[in-house]
């Protein structure tokens, strides 16, 4: 029951992070990069929740993100209005991407449970930058081939840096919430020291 309540809170935080993501204006002085909050929640969920919860969070996050960002466009743009609109990349790729990232981060859970909270910072930054890089590769590979201008790296790495900074207050916020809800993270059985 406590796990379900905590999972519900993480899910709600993730929903709000995705919905309010657009409130963070791009930073013109930093290559037009944006502050991404939802990877911080995703990374925390992957570290704090059991495997099933991690996958459920990744699915929810990916579906919501795709639904709010993927654009359905007509291939010939201005010239042929009768052509049906198609998404720039199929809806659902983000679920797969977030799922893979969440599972990778979940692999660090035993260390996180031992009190290594800095893993949340590192994995948040990693998730934010990896998501942006993967999205860029998916949308540019087909029309242009792979081009990596300097500004691109700024747009990919700066959000990762901001996600790492954001991870600290988010970690303490969820820690307080977990305590309030009486949620204790189940520790994996560890081998006795030799």
């Amino acid at each position, binding site marked *: 029951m406590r796990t379900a309540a905590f999972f519900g809170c993480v899910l709600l935080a993730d929903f709000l992070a*995705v*919905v*309010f*993501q*657009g*409130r963070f*204006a*791009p930073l*013109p*002085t930093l290559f*037009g*990069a*944006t502050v*991404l909050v939802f990877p911080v929640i995703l990374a925390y969920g992957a570290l704090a929740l*059991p*495997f*099933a919860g991690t*996958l*459920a969070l*990744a*699915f929810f996050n990916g*579906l*919501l*993100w795709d*639904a*709010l*960002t*993927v*654009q*359905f*466009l*007509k291939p*010939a*743009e*201005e*010239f*042929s*209005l009768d052509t*049906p*609109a*198609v*998404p*720039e990349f*199929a*809806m*659902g*790729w983000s*679920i*797969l991407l977030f*799922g893979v990232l969440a599972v990778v981060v979940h692999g660090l859970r035993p260390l996180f449970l031992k009190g290594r909270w800095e893993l949340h910072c590192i994995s948040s930054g990693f998730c934010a930058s990896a998501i*942006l890089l993967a*999205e*860029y590769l998916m*949308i*540019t590979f087909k029309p242009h081939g792979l081009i990596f*201008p300097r*500004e*691109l790296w700024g*747009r990919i790495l700066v*959000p990762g840096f901001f996600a790492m900074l954001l991870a600290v207050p988010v970690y303490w916020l969820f820690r307080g919430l977990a305590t309030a809800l009486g949620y204790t993270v189940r520790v994996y059985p560890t081998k006795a020291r030799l």
Partner: protein
Amino acid sequence: MSRTSIIALSAFVVLVVLVLTMRTTAAQNLQRWVLQLVRPINKATTSTASQLDAFGKGLKTLDQLEREVRDLRVDNEQLRTANEMMNEKIAENNRLRDALGFKQRSNFSLIPARIIARSASTWWSTVQIDRGEADGLDSDMPVVTDQGLVGKTTTVAANTAYVLLITDENCKVSAYVEGSGDMPVEARVKGLISGERIAEASSPELSLNFLPKTAQIAEGQKVFSYGVAGGVFPRGLLLGAIKSVQPHELDLRATVAPAVDLARLENVFIVRDTREAEAPKATAVTPTPAAAAPTPTPGPTVRAAQPVTPTPAGRR
């Protein structure tokens, strides 16, 4: 791996496959549903933010408010008069065009809308507006302000819609450069304008491509939409001003500063009925360095300096 984990992983894989293999219409319906779901949240936060912003700017005195109302009434009367005169001119123009055997130009109706959210994505330039199918919106409708073209609608839900901004790489508009508008059709400097996904400048810019190598273009010249037959955008909408010109091997390319400050955009207008306004559809033409834009046909003339004339019917 525990049994629960295996079941969870299997369920996840099945669900991912189901979503990935979803039909485009189903995916778009899902997007509409999510847009409709988040609309109240976005609208409420936008209105709260506006109220806080207004409060922050300070309360006005009764005298100030009275003066403002008086000024607005004068403006309103001026605009109504101008509108009436323009309607008469349009009617006269249509009669003359009819006499010459040309297709009549349309009167457009404008649907006002408010931006309730901006794109959450780094790679797409979109905004969400508070109008949808219930207000007569459809996909691929031009969106403007008094300053110029903003973009076009994409996914439209019941009470909300997405607008793809002109700064997005996918929003391509056939355009011509100021000064060449009065020239014969074949002599105009035409090109294809689009946004840039990775802009080098701190503010978003547009890229005007496929300009003829011999074109004489100077900095500051204005760029307008060309209004191709069967296209999305009517002719004469202001897009921006030339910032710089770069010669390439086969053509010229120009950087254009957008006319509309998209970062501060709050209210927009959706132009209705442009599709019916166009003459019979011409064959789609892909611009080439030699011939930048397809053959134009008589279409609606809508300029930012002389905004679209809203009419009650909004039809031909």
